[in-house]
């Protein structure tokens, strides 16, 4: 019988200041006990509770892909009590990770389809995981065309720049990296994600779209997808709500009858259309 509240002890392996405004840091963790690394089997789209003893826990999307090895990567925005403490922690320090929690993206159902990823701001974390997973030699052949649109305010706010370069250079993925406004030396796209999506105009035929970003991006992306004929069951989103238990017990994160932690965080647009907008 596993205790769902007990975090696995981990060691901070690497800390990186991820953006120019220093509001985001990327952490790599290694499990202290190999059997915990073994037990932590996850897929892109799932999240975990980062547990800092004495401060509490914060739910954070898993940015690494299981295809990268047994370490875990998270990119954390400095927000409140736990995340601020995390930002002060250094390599070698011991803390906890509890998970994996929630459902992954429906990677099985997505097989054989074209995939369109629309990401804005730091919501790109679990989509990093997804991209790495999809592009892995074991998986790439199972999917059709892959289109990746990702926008940030400025070049310095883009996460995972090395990977973006790598994907941009690949011929088996259409990469569109965009920033909000023109900046000297920037040779990629300029404009908000919905505008770029409009230009790219991905076709809905036999396709699935994963859309993650701040509420305003979602709001303006929706009409663009509607115009191109995308239906609610082809659009997959990932929700965030305040959480504690992460396992559907504490009653905090529900949207109608469903718990974002346990039944989500991944939902289709069609599912969400039937539910109260309590997120």
């Amino acid at each position, binding site marked *: 019988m596993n205790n*769902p509240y007990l975090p696995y*002890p981990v060691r901070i392996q690497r800390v990186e200041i991820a953006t120019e405004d220093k509001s985001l840091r990327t952490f790599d963790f290694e499990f202290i006990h190999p059997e915990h690394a073994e037990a932590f089997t996850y897929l892109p789209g799932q999240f975990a509770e980062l547990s800092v003893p*004495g401060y*509490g826990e914060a739910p954070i999307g898993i940015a690494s892909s299981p295809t990268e090895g047994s370490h875990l990567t998270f990119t954390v925005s400095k927000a409140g009590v736990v995340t601020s403490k995390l930002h002060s922690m250094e390599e070698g320090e011991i803390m906890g990770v509890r998970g994996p929690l929630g459902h992954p993206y429906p990677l099985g159902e997505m097989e054989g389809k074209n995939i369109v990823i629309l990401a804005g701001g730091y919501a790109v974390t679990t989509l990093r995981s997804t991209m790495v997973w999809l592009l892995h030699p074991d998986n790439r052949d199972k999917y059709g065309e892959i289109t990746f649109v990702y926008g940030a305010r400025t070049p310095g706010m883009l996460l995972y720049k090395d990977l973006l370069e790598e994907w941009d250079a690949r011929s088996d993925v259409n990469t569109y990296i965009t920033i909000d406004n023109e900046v000297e030396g920037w040779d990629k796209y300029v404009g908000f994600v919905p505008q770029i999506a409009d230009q790219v105009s991905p076709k809905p035929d036999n396709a699935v779209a994963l859309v993650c970003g701040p509420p305003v991006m979602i709001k303006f992306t929706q009409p663009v997808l509607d115009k191109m004929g995308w239906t609610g069951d082809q659009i997959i989103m990932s929700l965030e709500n305040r959480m504690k238990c992460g*396992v*559907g*017990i*504490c*009653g905090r994160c529900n949207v109608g009858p469903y718990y974002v932690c346990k039944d989500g965080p991944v939902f289709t647009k069609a599912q969400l259309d039937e539910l109260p907008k309590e997120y």
Partner: protein
Amino acid sequence: MHDKIIAKKDLDSFVRSLAQSRDVFAPVRDKASMGWAQIDSADNLEFDFLNTDFSPKAFFFPQNERLMHFTNSSRDEDGMIMEEEPPRDREQVLLNIRPCDAKAFCVLDLVFCQDENAPDVYWKDKRDKTVLIGLACKAPCPTCFCTSVNCGPHHEEGLDMLLVDLGEDLLARPLTDKGQELAADLQDAPQEAVDQAAGQKKASEEAITSTVDMSKINERPVLEEYEHPYFDRVFEACINCGTCTFYCPTCHCFDIQDETQDEFGHRVRNWDTCMSWLFTHHTSGHNPRGTKKDRVRQRFMHKFKYMPIKLGGAIGCVGCGRCTRKCPVNIDVRTVVNSMNE
């Protein structure tokens, strides 16, 4: 399993034998109210009471509970690693628990133990180590409506044994192996006692005249019920005090917090309430249930619409009437449900 009989005058030795190897708790009178207290004899046992003020949920889900502890030091080799609190070392008995409160535990089992490989170990440990001996309701209170929410004054679900007060004697009905074991030394009940208990059951059920109707709530899609115009009015009187949630035997929302003192730290869970705006407040300042209307609606939608959908028809209410009795502004759950059903 045969119904047994026990004379009230022999209860003392029954309680004393229970208490030899277990902690025994029962409702006892404390001035004007009834509360749960540990007993080691039958001296303070009561048979004429409605129900305890507080529900007994704290026996399995304490208002504050330590889940884990850790050494609060990065210098210590084992520091900053959470360790589980040890399980209970003694069994406990809840004697004279009302059937509705036992039924509430069955509903909460569906929540706390939804994942059989990773149940809420703190809830489960105490549940597994507890015997529930119920006392059927002879004179239900005017706020009770158990019979319309899958429960009743002689409801047996969740109990190991049901006692029915027959005056001089108690009928004792073992319902599980644990109950059978405790009843092993008791005499079989004569047929007239069994008949008398059956008559009392019928009379008690008939004495419960208030009902709720959920038929339309069950039929409607979630969003349609959510947008019911009734919610525009009911919230106005509510002051979001959370009293209803703390008294309710099926309310189970909690918060988790860390506490430290020098080198010692622990993680605790505390009862929380969906009536508080902080409950859902995001760090960004956004709040998905930012208004009082949202929160009042959540409490009733959760119990009467969301829980039945999630839990295979189980309702998040057992009709005990505590919320109605305790609400400072007289919000009556029966009126709310019946209005939601209009």
